[in-house]
């Protein structure tokens, strides 16, 4: 096969798929990309057996063909290539020539027959989601991370389900690491048919998706079919294989009915938490929040470093509440909001703190307390 393309058309996308091809899997070929040259276009596919990206781009195809080539090396060559027009030519079996004239590269390609099959999913009922909302959903999912040896499906993945609120159908994402839980509802257009009541999407795949969403772009088409979460935009699509497992019943967790609500200035609260967390260390992550007579006092005592105390006026009356938290979780959660005022709900030292907007329940963040004796 032989084709040429414009560097600027391809370079960015090659950069975006490095996350997919960079992931270690059981197959070495997942670090390759599959390039198909047909008609006047080339299609590029990356597949880490969980997330599949496919995109088609204009190119000048001289002879049609198919090629599996190392993603990282191909990207680096393209990125550094001095000219705008780049020629790719399979000179003989799997011996690929890139460039011409003064800069000439030869790369050994893999046998494309071994490249994992791209799932062929047709007749997808897409719904439309605002790019901004989708971006937020991804942020909700990825802010609550997981460690390398995590095995719990509900921590590895985020839940997506359809809910009905005030007669309106909404797309909900829930993400947790069992210490905190974030829940976000997005509007959508179209008809959503989930294979089950809810699905679990791997956080890893969703964070890869983030690179393909441009907040300012038009609404994005999203569908769920045949065990894949499918994202489509113009000439590009990303398919993320769903996780199979149980998601715990999270609804009682986000219920703040019997809690005491308080308004706080979001920015002030974030900066307070940032300051107080200066004195945290690996062994001492907790700060103590004391709510008492219109005042919130946040203190930390770290025997390794020292102690500090911060005070904030707050609308609170009633019996004193003293509760310990990890301040990082507050910063993570508060950064997801855009409102200047948020509501924090507390109950007692054994209950979580629930943060939500002043006006609605679009975004609800639950942070579990730490146990103090």
């Amino acid at each position, binding site marked *: 096969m032989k084709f040429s393309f414009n560097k600027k058309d391809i370079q960015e996308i090659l950069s975006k798929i490095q996350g997919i091809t960079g992931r270690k899997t059981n197959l070495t070929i997942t670090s390759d990309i599959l390039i198909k040259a047909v008609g006047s276009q080339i299609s590029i596919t990356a597949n880490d057996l969980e997330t599949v990206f496919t995109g088609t781009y204009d190119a000048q195809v001289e002879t049609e063909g198919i090629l599996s080539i190392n993603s990282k090396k191909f990207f680096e060559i393209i990125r550094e290539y001095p000219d705008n027009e780049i020629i790719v030519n399979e000179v003989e079996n799997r011996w690929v020539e890139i460039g011409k004239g003064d800069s000439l590269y030869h790369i050994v390609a893999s046998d494309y027959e071994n490249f994992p099959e791209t799932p062929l999913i047709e007749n997808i009922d897409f719904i439309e989601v605002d790019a901004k909302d989708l971006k937020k959903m991804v942020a909700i999912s990825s802010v609550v991370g997981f460690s390398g040896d995590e095995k719990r499906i509900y921590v590895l993945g985020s839940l997506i389900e359809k809910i009905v609120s005030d007669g309106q159908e909404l797309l909900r994402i829930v993400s947790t690491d069992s*210490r905190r839980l974030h829940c976000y509802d997005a509007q959508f257009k179209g008809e959503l048919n989930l294979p089950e009541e809810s699905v679990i999407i791997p956080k890893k795949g969703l964070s890869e998706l983030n690179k393909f969403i441009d907040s300012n772009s038009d609404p994005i088409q999203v569908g769920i079919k045949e065990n894949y979460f499918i994202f489509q935009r113009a000439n590009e699509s990303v398919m993320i294989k769903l996780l199979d497992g149980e998601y715990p019943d999270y609804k009682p*967790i986000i219920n703040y009915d019997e809690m005491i609500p308080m308004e706080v200035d979001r920015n002030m609260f974030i900066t307070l938490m940032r300051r107080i967390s200066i004195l945290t260390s690996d062994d001492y*992550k*907790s700060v103590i929040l004391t709510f008492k007579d219109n005042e919130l006092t946040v203190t930390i005592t770290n025997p390794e470093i020292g102690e500090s105390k911060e005070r904030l006026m707050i609308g609170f009356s009633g019996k004193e509440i003293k509760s310990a938290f990890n301040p990082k979780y507050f910063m993570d959660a508060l950064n997801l909001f855009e409102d200047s005022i948020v509501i924090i709900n507390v109950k007692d030292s*054994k209950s*979580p703190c629930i943060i939500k907007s002043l006006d609605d329940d679009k975004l609800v963040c639950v942070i*579990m*307390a*730490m*146990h103090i004796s």
Partner: protein
Amino acid sequence: MILHIDMDAFFAAIEQRDNPALRNKPIIIAGDSKRSVVSTASYEARKFGIHSAMPVFQAKQRCAKVILVPGNRYKYAAESKKIMAIISDFSPLVEQVSIDEAYVDIQGCEKLFGSPEVIAQKIKAAIFKELFLTCSIGIAPVKFLAKIASDMDKPNGITFISKHEMARVIKDLPIAKVPGVGKQAMKLMAILQIHTLGDLHKYDICLLNKKFGKMGKRLHELSHGKDLSRIETNYSRKSISSETTLSKDISDLKIARQLLLAHSQRVGRDLRKEKMICHNVSIKIKFSDFTQITRSKQTDSWICSSSAIFNEALSLYEKVVLKKKIRLLGVGVSHFMDKNAPIQMELLCPPKEKINKKWESVDMAVDSIMEKFGSGMITKASLNKRKKHV
């Protein structure tokens, strides 16, 4: 000045004190199986060349008349506590390093009690008066020399290395006596023609670093009479473990399970006594051919119940491919945290953890029963028949 106090034949001395029939006789403290090793030998037994860690059968070969006394670690621990209390009367800076050894920093105490030698005499006298036990004390300006000094005049002696004598002592100190220099290091020492600590002066610090790694720097410092290690008063345990050499080699999973359970119980009990929770469980297996392996794993959450420790230990054990019979089996825990330190609670509590929490309260109840009525009063049902194996 640093004092290193080392009790003389600690376990044996206690037994001889408590049982006049054993006095002035060669005795050894050891398990009753013929495969046990000597944990302490009385000075009478040492004359026959019997020493700690020697297999019992060998000890018996050396001296047929040797009396074997089964140990009682609770009794020794109680005595140890009393000794530490006596030492603490002389200085607040006491670092207990083992059941029968402690370092004391007596800086600033001279005005109260007298010169270092006088203080050492007073400590010896106090221990002897109250507990009828003797000890050997080494006095030196630095920790490692104090330890070496205490070994120079044993039993019941005092050795004083003054600041001026340090250089001379270091010059002639056999390198094998330096703490931390083991078999591997000795091989290198022989190649480098290092026989005494003073010989290290021949070599540049860079070379020592290269040859001995981290140890190189420390050896260099020691050879110049510098010991940066301080007296660590709030001594906290970094790991707790329990192990037994079996009376005969085993390969049966059922017996191994019971042993793991017994050790998990013991380790768990010690852990809870220290008011700690742990994040790492390990097992140690020594095979019939004396090769030894350890396996450890991080636990999903902080634990302190014996059954949680047992479950982790068992899963580690089940992953080991056994090709040889087992001679020794042990369970250990490490990576501790204060039980009362704040712990992140879970929003979604996995069922396993709820069970762990329940076992924790069961274990605490069992602990307090043992505390009050003795350790034999209550045990796991499956361990009731265990005695014949251990």
